[in-house]
């Protein structure tokens, strides 16, 4: 048994888990903070919406698509100089968050846009008929009605982030994925690989079930 787990340094694993959670939490927070307004904007200027603006929508849409089509591993490297300017380092948790945020924000914004489109147009019309301002329509009708969809989008984004954090190990970000690659893969320490993968699996499971539960809680349909 001890033979089997001989390579395991539990302190290191704990540290890596913490790093993963920090990267996940930090980048998810900024992704939502940036992506939610971006999704609302995409929705509002989109086809047949309140502020339909073809040119602006096309531009924004193109920008989002460019970022989404860029492989994350490339984005990580391209972002290094920008990350250094923003956080002072390209290493560790702080160094990983900017590329993670840039990598997932467009994705999240698209999902938000989609869930806003699912809101019945009649509800927007009814709110307009009450004399609501655009701001009130967004905050009192659109966002509350799209809440289950936005929560589901956040869950999907969080899980995407978990797999991105593993790649961030490439630029020295640390975390479970990094541990799996450096020790499990490159040093053939299978036990490390197995344990980190199990931990990542658990993390994804927890995120998904919490997300699902929240969706159910806020769905009134």
């Amino acid at each position, binding site marked *: 048994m001890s033979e089997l787990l001989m390579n395991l340094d539990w302190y290191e694993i704990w540290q890596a888990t913490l790093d993963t959670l920090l990267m996940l939490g930090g980048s998810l927070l900024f992704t939502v903070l940036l992506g939610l307004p971006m999704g609302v904007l995409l929705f509002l200027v989109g086809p047949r919406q309140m502020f339909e603006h073809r040119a602006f929508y096309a531009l924004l849409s193109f920008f989002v698509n460019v970022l989404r089509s860029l492989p994350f591993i490339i984005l990580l490297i391209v972002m290094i100089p920008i990350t250094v300017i923003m956080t002072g380092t390209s290493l560790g948790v702080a160094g990983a968050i900017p590329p993670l945020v840039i990598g997932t924000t467009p994705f999240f914004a698209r999902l938000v846009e989609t869930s806003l489109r699912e809101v019945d147009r009649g*509800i927007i*019309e*009814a709110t307009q*008929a*009450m*004399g609501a301002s655009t701001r009130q329509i967004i905050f009192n009708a659109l966002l*509350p009605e799209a809440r289950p969809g936005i929560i589901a989008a956040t869950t999907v984004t969080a899980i995407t982030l978990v797999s991105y954090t593993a790649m961030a190990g490439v630029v020295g970000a640390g975390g479970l994925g990094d541990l799996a690659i450096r020790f499990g893969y490159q040093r053939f320490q299978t036990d490390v690989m197995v344990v980190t993968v199990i931990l990542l699996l658990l993390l994804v499971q927890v995120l998904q079930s919490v997300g699902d539960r929240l969706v159910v809680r806020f769905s*009134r349909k």
Partner: protein
Amino acid sequence: MIEFHDVHKSYAVNGQSIAALQSMQLKVLRGEIFGLIGHSGAGKSTLLRLINRLEEPSGGRIIVDGVDVTALDAQGLRRFRQRVGMIFQHFNLLSSKTVADNVAMPLKLAGELPRVQIKQRVVELLARVGLSEHANKYPAQLSGGQKQRVGIARALATDPKILLCDEATSALDPQTTAQVLQLLAEINRELGLTIVLITHEMDVIRRVCDRVGVMDGGVIVEHGLVSDVFLHPQHPTTQRFVQETEGDTDLAPGEDYQHVSGRIVRLTFLGEATYAPLLGRVARETGVDYSILAGRIGRIKDQACGQLTLALTGGKEMLAEQQLRAAGVHVEVLRP
């Protein structure tokens, strides 16, 4: 209360301009229930939405309660809309909010009342529409009729002078339709609310409206008191609508009663005359015989009405007609 002066509306479809409404003139009186009937695509929905400018007119002026709606700026328009209630075919309630929160929403958006008073007002409104015990439910837990009641309570929240109804009963079964119409009539009576409703069912018009406009192809082809339009429809579109509800045979094209002898007349009774034993008396006194070819008796809003198509024989038909006219019956000769 609501006046349309030469209002028109056109949409650009694939670079071409398509007219939805053409030089519309319309007057809705204070405190009445005005119905607009038309098939889908007739322009009634556009017309209704012009009143609170959910649709922007392409030209003309719309005056509501002395205010030129077409001239309002964004801020003014929001204020104005807060004073105009609206209900919808598919209710358009917020599924994420409880019944009470849905009803409170216009008040919260207006931001004029403190929270305690909003709560109080919501309690009153829910009591009025008979949903007090459902305050904390979500719309998905209610039946269609209950949802529309929530819609009505919400529309009344800001104490509007005008209520716009967009096919408010079209998604409901006949029994629920009757209840919702009754509620609308009650609100109209008790609050003195002016109601404009659009529908494609003549029956809705007959039950609650005071006046009606019939729309076809972006114009009002016929309008007037419901009793007049309903009993003496002039325009083919109107005649079709009346026929649809009544299955009335003598309005059907091609019915000429060739096989019947005598003078064919149509009598229209309205109000008291409907229930008076007129026909028998007139027949006795003039010696005229009659056979009933077609007929309908019913109510238009609170008024009894009837229409009979008769074949008169016996010689003194003219005298009989005179006596009937003297008793307040409208007589129309279909075939001398």
